[in-house]
């Protein structure tokens, strides 16, 4: 699906990756691991087209990303470590807006998705009065609505409780089962039911 070739990225005069290549196939979970500051978020931002600070090629279905940006963005769902949730809007309004931005989200089942993430009864509460974990859940509710084949998730489990993490892991397993793929960073020991996770350790990639 997604292919990275000869990626070179330097930040604050420190080389994060040199000659880094990665291929993400359909029905695969790739977990990016590494110390704090090893460039996990930077890598995901590059993959999303949210950073230009690199040289190398990124190919989507074999074609350079710059040429197929629109199709790529339709097929990709990104949850950053900032959730993109507006504090003054309610959970439902936030999801409505996310749907406007992302055509791959299923319009009919907002209420269902909020129920799935355990926010049933909180639809009409402005998000700033929800807890950090609940706000995170609002952002992650998109995963229940999404039909995009590629998910890029940056620290999706931050602030989630154990049950929440389990549910998300089950959701990822379901997504893989349907032929989708997931790239994520997390410090959590990932246990995807019925799937093996391919780890990419950035500490080994970096040039000392």
């Amino acid at each position, binding site marked *: 699906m997604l292919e990275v070739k000869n990626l070179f990225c330097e930040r604050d005069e420190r080389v994060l990756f040199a000659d880094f290549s990665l291929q993400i196939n359909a029905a695969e979970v790739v977990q990016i691991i590494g110390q704090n500051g090893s460039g996990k978020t930077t890598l995901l931002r590059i993959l999303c087209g949210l950073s230009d600070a690199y040289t190398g090629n990124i190919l989507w279905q074999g074609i350079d990303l710059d040429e197929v940006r629109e199709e790529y963005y339709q097929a990709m769902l*990104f949850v950053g470590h900032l959730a*993109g949730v507006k504090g003054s809007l309610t959970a439902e309004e936030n999801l409505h807006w996310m749907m406007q*931005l992302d055509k791959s989200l299923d319009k009919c089942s907002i209420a269902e998705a909020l129920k799935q993430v355990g926010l049933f009864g909180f639809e009409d509460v402005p998000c700033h009065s929800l807890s950090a974990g609940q706000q995170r859940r609002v952002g992650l509710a998109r995963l229940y609505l999404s039909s995009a084949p590629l998910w890029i998730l940056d620290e999706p489990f931050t602030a989630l409780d154990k049950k929440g993490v389990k549910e998300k892991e089950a959701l990822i397993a379901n997504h893989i089962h349907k032929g989708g793929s997931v790239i994520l960073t997390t410090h959590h020991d990932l246990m995807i039911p019925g799937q093996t996770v391919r780890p990419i350790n950035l500490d080994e990639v970096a040039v000392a």
Partner: protein
Amino acid sequence: MRFFIAALKRDLLLVFRHRNDIINPLAFFMMVAVLFPLGVSPDPTFLSEVAAGVIWVAALLACLLSVDGIFRGDYEDGSLEQMLVSSESLLVLVLAKVLSHWLISGFCLAIISPLVAMMFFLPEQGYPALILSLLLGTPTLSLMGAIGAGLTVGLRKGGVLISLLVLPLYIPVLIFGAGTVQAGAMGLPIQGYLALLGAILVLSLMLAPFAIAAALKISVRS
């Protein structure tokens, strides 16, 4: 179009939930109008002479004051990233955001401007010129201000920089805007001035969205 309306609705809803954002530029505009005669001279002939310039400068600064926040909230909570990885057009989104900014700043200023004009003893025949010039001129201010806001959104302290970037672009609008009001107050024809303001608006409407979208991409990606 559907996306434009959705984006506009969202921004107006956000403003409605943070009412300070509306009140701030208006309060600034009114305060300048109230304090200026106190500080300089309450003489009606003097005030009516300077009315056009002072009202336009106050309106311009009120716009500048509020334009800094046009993308800041979205940048800070990650919404802007989501907008950039969306397959929807960034140009449409940017236009919706600028329109919502204009509705809460320039449009409201134009509506309350007769009140301020009254305090400045502006001759009554100048009122239509004042309202029309503000209605035609302030959208340009919002569009050009948004370019600066897009460029500085990634900086922690963009406030000063945005003024430096944007003020030179504001000057033609100020000159023709205040000129319209002055001509109107003296009973001279104002169509020429309005045509110029309109031309500047059309030009910036055609070009600014591209600049704003590019500025946002630069700010987020670098």
